[in-house]
């Protein structure tokens, strides 16, 4: 259809599936994700969205089917540092402040050019909470602290598991903005969500989990 479809996809799944105790968690999936695209993973509770994202991130091994990264079989070293995963567990240390948490992430992943912890935290709506231990933040503020990684770290593929949960309306709009500017600059994202995602940059591609 568009030029993107003919280009090499960032991520391509062929009959991808995951088994737990020899039972498939979801029906085999086929999809392609190109640079600049946003895919919405939809499905009921327990349909396997989280499982799928963890698999794509390389945390769970692939039980059957194939997964290709830029045309070649997905391997850890090939996509290292290109994928950013945000799960139900936020990966924040409760005893450190948002700023310190970001600094650690930047130490391991590197930083986007021009980005800085302070400006990123201000943008994400945590001004004034930069040096509060994460333990003392409210649920939505914790979520924001985790989302700040998206702004700070360089990555071409974002895997976001329910990024909207616990956020207020401003926060939801913010995530949509982030997604839009990410796809605009050639990044791709897969997002799971139960709410309505009002993504401005056109209708996102949808991946339905059948269970």
């Amino acid at each position: 259809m568009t030029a993107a479809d003919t280009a090499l996809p960032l991520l391509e799944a062929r009959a991808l599936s995951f088994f737990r105790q020899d039972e498939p968690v979801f029906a085999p999936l086929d999809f392609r994700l190109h640079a600049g695209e946003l895919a919405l993973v939809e499905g009921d509770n327990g349909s396997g969205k989280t499982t799928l994202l963890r698999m794509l991130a390389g945390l769970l091994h692939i039980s059957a089917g194939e997964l290709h990264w830029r045309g070649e079989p997905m391997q850890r070293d090939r996509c290292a540092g290109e994928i950013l995963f945000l799960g139900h567990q936020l990966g924040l240390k409760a005893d450190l402040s948002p700023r310190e948490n970001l600094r650690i992430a930047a130490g391991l992943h590197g930083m986007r050019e021009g980005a800085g912890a302070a400006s990123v935290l201000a943008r994400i709506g945590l001004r004034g909470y930069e040096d509060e231990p994460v333990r003392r933040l409210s649920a939505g503020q914790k979520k924001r602290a985790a989302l700040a990684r998206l702004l700070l770290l360089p990555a071409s593929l974002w895997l976001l598991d329910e990024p909207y949960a616990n956020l207020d309306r401003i926060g939801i709009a913010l995530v949509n903005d982030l997604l839009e500017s990410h796809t605009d600059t050639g990044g791709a994202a897969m997002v799971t969500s139960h709410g309505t995602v009002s993504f401005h940059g056109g209708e996102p591609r949808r991946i339905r989990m059948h269970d």
Partner: protein
Amino acid sequence: MNRPSLASACAAMLRRDLTLAWRRRGDIAMPVLYALIVTMLFPFALGPEDTLLQRIAGGVVLVTVLLAMLLALDAMFASDIEDGSLEQLVLAPQPLALMLGMKILAHWLATALPLIVIAPLMAAMLHLPGVVIPVLLLALVLATPLLSLLGAVLVALTAGTRRSGMLLALMLLPLCVPAVIFAAGAVAAAQQGLPWLAPVAWLAAALVLAVVLAPLACAAALRIALDA
């Protein structure tokens, strides 16, 4: 994208774990206090007979330090698994083994080092002769990182499970025993005025091996354990 250099990633990792340890310094101090309590309770439990205490001092200090370390070992990855930051570490574009090596180093610095620092105090409380103390310290300096390294591999193996402390103890025991035997052998030899170099050399050799292999094994074990 500017990928951070290996050295700066290592530094970030080390700083992270040390900062966390510092924020929870109550928890670091726990093994130390634990060791002190044990040393204090012994004279009460056995009666304050100097010769007896002196006779068992070296052994008690060794066992106590190693057990105090065992206490803290269990928690090495626990909180990182709970809050999802271990996943983030696994996904980071850095060699996992090296990062885990840094974690182990930080853990050793935070738990074993304070114990080694107070070991002379503990030894003095039990009237261990002063000349033996350097040997005791040497034995501890070699045996504690060995325990940290081997322990880390086993903790990593149990990381995917519901953090079963028993399992860890069960698996660590066979590894503890040789370390204790050699370390205690050195201390006992020194106390009797015999040469104590051989057991220390064995410990050192084991430590060198462990430093090279344990982080790799730890990374492999962690990848197996997280894949659930």
